[in-house]
């Protein structure tokens, strides 16, 4: 089976898978402990608006999606900081309107027949070298931010009221966590697509939570698990000729089921 490693698109897919898994492990941990999974889901879907606009304007798609997703994250942060109890309605609105904007702009682009499915469900086999550079930079950025602000992020995530009493700017760090999630989601769109990205953020993290006693170890375990799922999902998708995004997620789901079953039997 190792002859498949000769193909450069397979090499790219593997590197991209590992890079995305690292980001998903770190950010997924923050998303799960802060209980903002569906906020992140909303950002992921509204990122499609950025994809549509980028296609219409003829600028790089990843760039368009990044700008749009970060703006969405900031808007969501501002609204939810003002009125936390309306979070779910706000997510619903951002979720749908972002996608609507994307579809309209793709429709308006003359003669362009975009493969919508590849953004919704991912196509890691089609990852380019530029995408890999983008993902590498993103990983470096996420890791440096999280390492430098680890104490603050930990305090705000665990007990935001106490953190504010200790002089930590809770609003800033809440917004920062949302922006980091937006960046991670955009990078993961290529691999698993914006619909499936939520599973890559939550399943490895949910599993890691059972083993970790610290936030940092949860991040590391999640990243390792996500990498394992991504690589085995890729192998499965190659040999059975099925969609890479879906097979990555299904491998993760099966692993989750097995671990939970073993725990349950004990």
């Amino acid at each position: 089976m190792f002859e498949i490693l000769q193909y450069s698109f397979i090499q790219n897919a593997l590197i991209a898978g590992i890079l995305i898994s690292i980001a998903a492990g770190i950010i997924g941990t923050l998303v799960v402990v802060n209980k903002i999974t569906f906020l992140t889901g909303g950002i992921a879907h509204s990122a499609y608006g950025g994809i549509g606009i980028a296609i219409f304007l003829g600028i790089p798609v990843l760039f368009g999606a990044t700008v749009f997703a970060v703006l969405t994250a900031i808007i969501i942060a501002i609204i939810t900081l003002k009125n936390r109890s309306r979070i779910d309605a706000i997510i619903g609105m951002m979720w749908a309107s972002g996608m609507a904007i994307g579809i309209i702009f793709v429709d308006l682009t003359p003669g362009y027949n975009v493969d919508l499915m590849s953004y919704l469900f991912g196509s890691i086999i089609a990852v380019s070298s530029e995408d890999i550079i983008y993902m590498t930079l993103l990983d470096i950025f996420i890791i440096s931010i999280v390492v430098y602000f680890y104490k603050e992020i930990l305090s705000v995530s665990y007990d935001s009221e106490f953190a504010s009493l200790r002089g930590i700017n809770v609003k800033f760090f809440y917004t920062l966590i949302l922006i980091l999630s937006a960046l991670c989601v955009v990078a993961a769109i290529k691999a698993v697509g914006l619909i499936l990205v939520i599973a890559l953020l939550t399943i490895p993290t949910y599993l890691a939570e059972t083993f970790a006693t610290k936030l940092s170890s949860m991040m590391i375990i999640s990243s390792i698990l996500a990498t394992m799922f991504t690589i085995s999902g890729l192998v499965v998708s190659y040999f059975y000729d099925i969609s890479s995004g879906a097979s990555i997620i299904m491998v993760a789901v099966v692993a989750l089921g097995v671990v939970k079953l073993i725990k349950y039997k004990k």
Partner: protein
Amino acid sequence: MDLINIKNLFFKYQKTEVLENVNLTIKDDDFLAIIGPNGGGKSTLLKLILGLLPLQSGTIEKNIENNQVGYVPQNTNLNIDFPITALEVVLMGHISSKKRLFGYSKDEISCAIESLNQVGMKDFANKKIGDLSGGQRQRVFIARALCSNPKIMLLDEPTASIDVQGQQEIYELLRELNKSICIVVVSHDLSILLNYAKNVAHINRSLVYHSLAEVQKNVTLADDHLCEVELLSALGKTQICCNHVH
């Protein structure tokens, strides 16, 4: 010395008046119990003192720095799945000092371990917070408040959802701490609390203050039987009168 001086304090949420003309002085060696019905404004008063809620009308004069006020929040049972060790929880209590590139300084860690030692939880430093019992977790939160060397410690329902044995241990610990710092406890556990507190403030929109020596004198006059219900309602009145016969 007066640590905190509250004068003519009013507070409303939207249109509901929660606190009405509250006046309260807290001395540096006090062990003050704040009691009263649910929704009576106990937690609101605490949050106003801490500065977690904005002042609307009236004054709260503090003769200490804001970071000399220790705080143990209600609902320490929330977020039990969070991956954090007892030591890390206590480390949160440090006043944000100079920014380090990575992790915690040796001083911060040894100070946090000393705080854990003070509450008898040193051996549990590396345990996940969710694996501790309710009483143990409460001790960790007290250690976190101790970390900043407070002059006064405010505790919001510290013994809610802890068994009776654990409650007594927490109050013993607070009595010990009260030798050097002022303790303010918001609580429902009247019968235990009254063995430890020096003064009582009953809040139901307005505040009624009692020195506990005076209350106990009046209560023992009644007969040997202490009726908690009656005591509670008596504390809500300005005059204490206990001559109810069972």
